[in-house]
């Protein structure tokens, strides 16, 4: 969960707010004060992971006030908040290589400079699509962060150690919904099957290696190495839900080299619109 701090317990509604210094959602101290400056390769890897979290958080944020029940407004909001926290840490770290802030990277890069995977760019769709996307991505992220905790890069290891606990909850949340939708009503089962088959073409890209990974031995986690654990983790859930792994299209992907789905440009346009209308302003 993102850390939200106020400067005082702040129960006194008659306070004149003379000394307001709301210190909210601060980044972890080790990130701000740490001596570590990312190398170009590490920064690129941090962008891979940071952009995935940012794009997914942006999508989940759009559910808040539109979810099927109030409890899900809260739950999807929690997941989005966790992901935005991971994105901020990772983008902050990536920015140390080129002296850019998390916001410079989030708001002032254009589409080809983003490194997100196509799966996180896929639209929310109905609740089943959002859940299928969450199910795939959070299981992947859990396996990733579990291993990244042992990274030779202390900053990446620290971010992963915190993120893995949160992603574990996301994994459980999406698993519970996959079971309910797959085994609820005929309609929900049909929707779950459709959603899984719509999202599955984007799974392969997640586990594709790149020369960047060769250069970051011991620092990055090799995506292909996660596939067996991912398959083993989702298999019992799919079995219990009586769902089969869809066969069919495999999307060619390309997010890691800046070749994105058609959806990303719209998502960025919305996310960046206000900031770009006021260059140099602070918020």
């Amino acid at each position: 969960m993102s850390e939200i701090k106020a400067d005082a317990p702040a129960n006194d509604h008659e306070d004149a707010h003379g000394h307001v210094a709301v210190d909210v959602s601060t980044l972890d101290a080790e990130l701000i004060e740490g001596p570590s400056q990312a190398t170009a390769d590490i920064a690129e890897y941090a962008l891979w992971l940071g952009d995935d979290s940012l794009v997914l958080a942006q999508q989940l944020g759009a559910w808040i006030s539109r979810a099927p029940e109030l409890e899900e407004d809260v739950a999807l909001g929690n997941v989005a908040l966790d992901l935005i926290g991971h994105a901020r840490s990772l983008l902050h770290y990536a920015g140390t290589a080129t002296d850019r802030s998390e916001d410079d990277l989030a708001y002032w890069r254009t589409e080809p400079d983003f490194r997100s995977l196509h799966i996180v760019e896929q639209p929310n769709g109905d609740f089943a699509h959002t859940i299928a996307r969450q199910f795939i991505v959070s299981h992947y992220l859990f396996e990733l962060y579990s291993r990244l905790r042992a990274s030779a890069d202390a900053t990446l290891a620290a971010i992963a150690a915190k993120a893995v606990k949160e992603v574990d909850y996301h994994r459980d949340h999406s698993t519970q919904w996959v079971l309910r939708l797959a085994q609820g009503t005929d309609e929900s089962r049909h929707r779950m099957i459709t959603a899984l088959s719509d999202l599955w073409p984007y799974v392969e890209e997640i586990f594709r290696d790149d020369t960047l990974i060769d250069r970051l031995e011991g620092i990055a986690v090799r995506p292909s190495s996660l596939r067996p654990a991912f398959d083993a983790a989702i298999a019992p859930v799919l079995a219990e839900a009586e769902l089969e792994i869809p066969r069919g299209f495999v999307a060619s992907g390309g997010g890691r080299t800046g070749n994105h789905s058609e959806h990303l440009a719209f998502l960025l346009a919305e996310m960046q619109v206000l900031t770009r209308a006021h260059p140099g302003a602070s918020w």
Partner: protein
Amino acid sequence: MTSTITPDTSAPVAISVEEQQFNDLIEADSRIEPRDWMPEGYRKSLVRQISQHAHSEIIGMQPESNWITRAPSLKRKAILMAKVQDEAGHGLYLYSAAQTLGATRDDMTDALIAGKARYSSIFNYPTPSWADMGSIGWLVDGAAICNQVPLCRASYGPYGRAMVRICKEESFHQRQGFEILLELMQGTEEQRQMAQDSVNRWYWPALMMFGPPDDDSPNSAQSMAWKIKRHSNDELRQRFVNMLVPQAAVLGVTLPDPDLHFNEETQQWDLGEIDWTEFHEVLAGRGPNNAQRLQRRRDAHDEGAWVREAAAAYAHKQSARTEEMAAK
């Protein structure tokens, strides 16, 4: 029944032991709990107030969620998400408090989406600019806190306790709103204009949140006698304006009331005439966003029906399976 608690009654009326106990609890500033006897009017009045409050939290998510995807920095995006999420949580506690009085969540939800239940009119105003996230926090949540802090001592236990938690979070909401405006007022000329324009739009509607003037507030006297409500509308409104004036000075924004002035005699800030016609128009469903707010709530509810049905069917199948296992 009401004659026993209306303060100016003189004729003695025979009342039951339970009713006497209820009156004694109210008199002693104690809490009424769900299993205690209570007059039907007290129960109804509470269900009305608590469910309206819950609906306000839920509808109130919309004007702010409007900016989640466009928040101008990642920090602001995180804070705004957390805030809107808190509001969903407040709605949930309040619906639970109303459930302790026998109301069901389905009935309350149906009344809301059918347009039969009230919620705070303030949320029928639009949020065309980012600065509105600041004004909602500073003015709307500020007014809500003035209204709600006394409710922490409301005579009905579950309501009072829910309000304690809600007020703590609202206080953070108000601060973050103030901080958004402060940052804008210290920013570029365009940002300062954005902030002032937003304050101009939200100031009067925020003052109307305290409800009609005391001499025109039909439910107030009884609620005060029952200690559901502790201060009058005008009293709370005055308290709020007294609080705002120095805060506006810190911000450097102008409150859009040319008649606002300090009254040396009363040591209070006297305010100009409130345009109650606008209040009644919005209340009557002729505000800027009434239709849109309800439509969004209804769409979310209707589009989510299949998900809720799936969850219910799954739970039913699971419990049938458990029973089957137990029978073997």
